């Protein structure tokens, strides 16, 4: 047997070894090869992006595209990207969250595309939501934004905003009007929101009127709706020590204190999917899972108006160009193609986000997407078009550091009450301002 093994396996092994060497695809010579990457939410998105990449590759003479699906948010998309940037092996084009643009730009990791865009035929940045482009054209040297600011850090891949995911069955059981009905009557505000949450919560010990997850955009939304803000006008200091912040935190503290909210810090999505939560605040990205899992009637609703009117976020991320890419012009061209109406329509059809283009064709493609046909998708588009504020990169300090200092204080207010709502603003600024000072000293 041993002889047979030797005789039989040696040529097989040699052949396999040869083939392993040989199977490397023959790359076309004299072609520009662009590597690009984006953070997908799921495998369906990876498939769509791959198809998009293949289609662009096929029609683009002289350019070969290599699409590299990045890890998703939970499995280290940013970690991998950082390692590759530090090693000089990052792709030519990659996606980063909107809030990270300042860090990547000020650290010199991404290319300012303003000059290239100015010379590019048919380039029009105004087709995207202006809130996004204001951030993407911010020039830290002149502290101005706009088409002539001299800065363009990338183009927005997509957009999203918050909405309330509403369990209609619970509303029917409680016999109360839905948020959409209240809004139609012009009566959808913090007061009616609280009453609604209480009525839903009264349905049972394990039923909650409201749920939201524990990260900055959630509590900050209510601060904005109260007329307050995290930062001062030029975003160089904390501005949470205000009456408006106190009003918002008191409102939330009361809501959680009376047990109407899924305990802050608990992932509110599983209980919502299980049918135990009346109103769940989340972004469009929660839609695919809700569509797939929810066994009850549900719909979207706009976030209630606060003392200062309606408020929402415009969440976004951008395709940017690696500063070390040897093919900057082609990279910009690729970004333009990746943010076309056609591509955005394909991606938004999967349900996890909205187009970053504000035009009618892109918005209609989103509204008519089959995945949420018949639902109140306007809850998202109304916010984006009318009152959503773009999540903005912080150029004067590290936002993650400041968030890391303030978030525990939010937890203290909303979980165990060890910090009073009226003391939150002062404590938050005491924690955040040294970080601004440290950043100023460092720069």
């Amino acid at each position: 047997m041993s002889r047979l093994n030797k005789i039989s396996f040696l040529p097989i092994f040699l052949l396999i070894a040869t083939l392993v060497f040989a199977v490397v695809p023959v790359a076309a010579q004299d072609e520009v090869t662009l590597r690009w990457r984006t953070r997908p939410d799921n495998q369906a998105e990876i498939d769509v992006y791959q198809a998009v990449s293949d289609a662009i590759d096929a029609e683009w003479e002289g350019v070969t595209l290599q699409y590299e699906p990045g890890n998703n948010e939970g499995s280290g998309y940013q970690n991998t990207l950082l390692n590759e940037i530090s090693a000089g092996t990052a792709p030519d084009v990659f996606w980063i969250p909107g809030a990270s643009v300042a860090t990547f730009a000020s650290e010199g990791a991404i290319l300012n595309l303003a000059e290239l865009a100015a010379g590019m035929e048919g380039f029009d940045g105004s087709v995207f939501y202006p809130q996004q482009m204001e951030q993407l054209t911010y020039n830290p040297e002149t502290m101005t934004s706009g088409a002539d600011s001299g800065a363009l850090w990338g183009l927005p891949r997509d957009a999203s905003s918050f909405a309330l995911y509403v369990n209609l069955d619970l509303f029917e059981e409680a016999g109360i009007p839905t948020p959409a009905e209240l809004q139609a009557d012009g009566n959808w505000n913090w007061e009616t929101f609280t009453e609604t949450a209480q009525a839903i919560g009264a349905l049972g010990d394990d039923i909650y009127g409201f749920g939201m997850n524990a990260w900055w955009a959630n509590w900050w939304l209510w601060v904005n709706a109260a007329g307050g803000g995290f930062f001062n006008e030029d975003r160089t200091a904390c501005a949470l020590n205000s009456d408006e912040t106190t009003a918002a935190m008191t409102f939330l503290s009361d809501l959680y204190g009376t047990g109407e909210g899924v305990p802050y810090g608990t992932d509110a999505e599983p209980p919502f999917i299980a049918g135990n939560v009346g109103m769940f605040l989340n972004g469009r990205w929660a839609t695919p899972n809700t569509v797939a899992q929810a066994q009850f009637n549900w719909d979207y609703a706009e976030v209630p108006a606060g003392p200062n009117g309606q408020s929402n976020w415009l969440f976004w991320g951008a395709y940017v160009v690696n500063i070390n890419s040897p093919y900057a012009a082609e990279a910009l061209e690729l970004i333009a193609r990746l943010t076309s109406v056609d591509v955005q329509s394909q991606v938004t059809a999967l349900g996890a986000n909205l187009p970053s283009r504000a035009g009618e064709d892109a918005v209609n493609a989103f509204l008519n997407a089959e995945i949420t046909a018949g639902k109140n998708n306007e809850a998202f588009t109304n916010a984006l078009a009318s009152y959503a504020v773009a999540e903005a990169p912080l150029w004067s300090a590290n936002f993650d550091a400041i968030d890391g200092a303030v978030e525990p204080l939010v937890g203290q207010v909303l979980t165990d009450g060890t910090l009073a709502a009226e003391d939150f603003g002062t404590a938050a600024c005491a924690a955040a301002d040294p970080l601004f000072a440290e950043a100023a000293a460092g720069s």
Partner: protein
Amino acid sequence: MAATSQVRTSLTVKRPLPTVGLPLIVWHLVVGVAALFGAYNITQLQIDALEKTNYVIQYFGAALTFIYALCSLVAVLLILQVNSNGRLISMAVNVIGFSLALAYLGQILGVYEGFDYLSGGLARNILLMLGIPLGYAVVWIAWRMHEPSSTRALLEKVGLGIMGISLMLLLLASLATPEADNVISGLVGAVLNLLGKWLSLNGLLATALAALFGAGCYVMVREAQAFGETTSQRESWQGWLFLLPNLLNFSIFFAGPLLLSFYLSFTDFSALSNANFIGLRNYSAMFTLSINPLPAGVTDATTVIPTLQTEFTRFALGNQTYVVGARDPLFWTSVGNTFRYCILLLPLSIIPALALAILLNSKIPGMKFFRAVFFLPSVAAVVGVALIWKWLYDPVIGYINYALGTVASWFGIAPPEPQWLTDTNLLLLSVVIMASWQVIGFNTVIFLAGLQGVPKELHEAATVDGANGWRRFLNITLPLIAPTTFFIVVTTLISGLQAFSEFFSLIQENPTNAKLTTVYYLYQRGFERFDMGYASATAWVLFGMIFIVTLIQFRLSGRADAYSD
């Protein structure tokens, strides 16, 4: 002692230079001078990819090349003296050169990309792999036949054929999609591509270098007698040869990054821009603390804390309240959380493991099954385990609170509703319970091995002397398994001090700082706040903490060792 005398012998006995000595001397001279030239050139290169880390990796590479050059030149001198150590150094230089030349050849041929590409092809055509177990099954049936026969030989051939053909088909199918139009053209194109790369200047150079280094090594292996090789010397170099792959792997992928991280801890490296040397600033920011008396009637700590510091904690001595300010209070919070976690983890993962091991050490039917069952959580991924426990802990739809509520209803009392993942008093316990559940199986198996080494005679003698089970456990079992216990305590503590995944996966959403362990904090600084320099410094401080704690444990383990003899 024996080795020393051999070295002395090799230095004192004059042997004639073997015939191959002169070419080898010339070869090592060439290699040495070329490596010296290479080391100098490496320092002069401006490799863009290494700019961000101030070319430290480049200098590290230059230093290694310089050492390699020195070795080659030293080999020249020693070979001239027909010294056996010279032969060993020559062999080492040639083996390393051979490995590097092969690695370079692989790079030129695209073998690494090839593996990558092949793995994609295998994934696409995974069904064709079914031929391998099928073929193996046929061979296995053949091997079950006791007598050699033509049927057995035929079955063996058929089985091997099935395996070989399915491998071929798998490779061809992988090759055919998606780049090639069809299998044949794809194969021909790929082979021509391979030949083209091999016949390039670099390909031929790498092949020639591999051949020369290989020949140099081969010649030296054959000249054992000429250099007076002893048995122990032969065993020694053969041992090192076996160690070589791991040694190279360790140097390149472990020691190198370790040294780099040590360097980075003295910089402001962000991963995005170039690192600037800032001396001990990261370490001083971490350790800067101040204790400030708070004047009576004043509650706002910011009035007494130095600039750039924030309040970490406050305490009272007599009537005076003091505020502890820190440049980085989160670091201290994370250290505190880590030690609290370890203090809870040790008893909760060791005592139940010992109890389980004692139970599983008994001769009850089905014990092997239970041993496997208890070990299962140890091999499960932390992230998957955390997802399950997250659901169990969920205050709304979790089974734990549901069970507690059900039990409470039996006694007619109000159901307790612990908020496992949000109550800061329960948070650490929730993580410890999950981590203990996962690690108990591993600890149990180790304890089991220890228990099985306890001589039965001692228990029998103690039983005859009238000792009950508890007394025997206390006075015989526990002391005799002390080395095992020590091992478990040390490994559990080290893993506890490095805790990250448990917290990251289970309580990432928690808004408080109760989730911050030292490694979690390190991760936040490095990957969320782009502060790789500071994160590196934190990693080295953590290393220091683990080292000190382990050292203390080793010192305390003297008594345990006394029983191990």
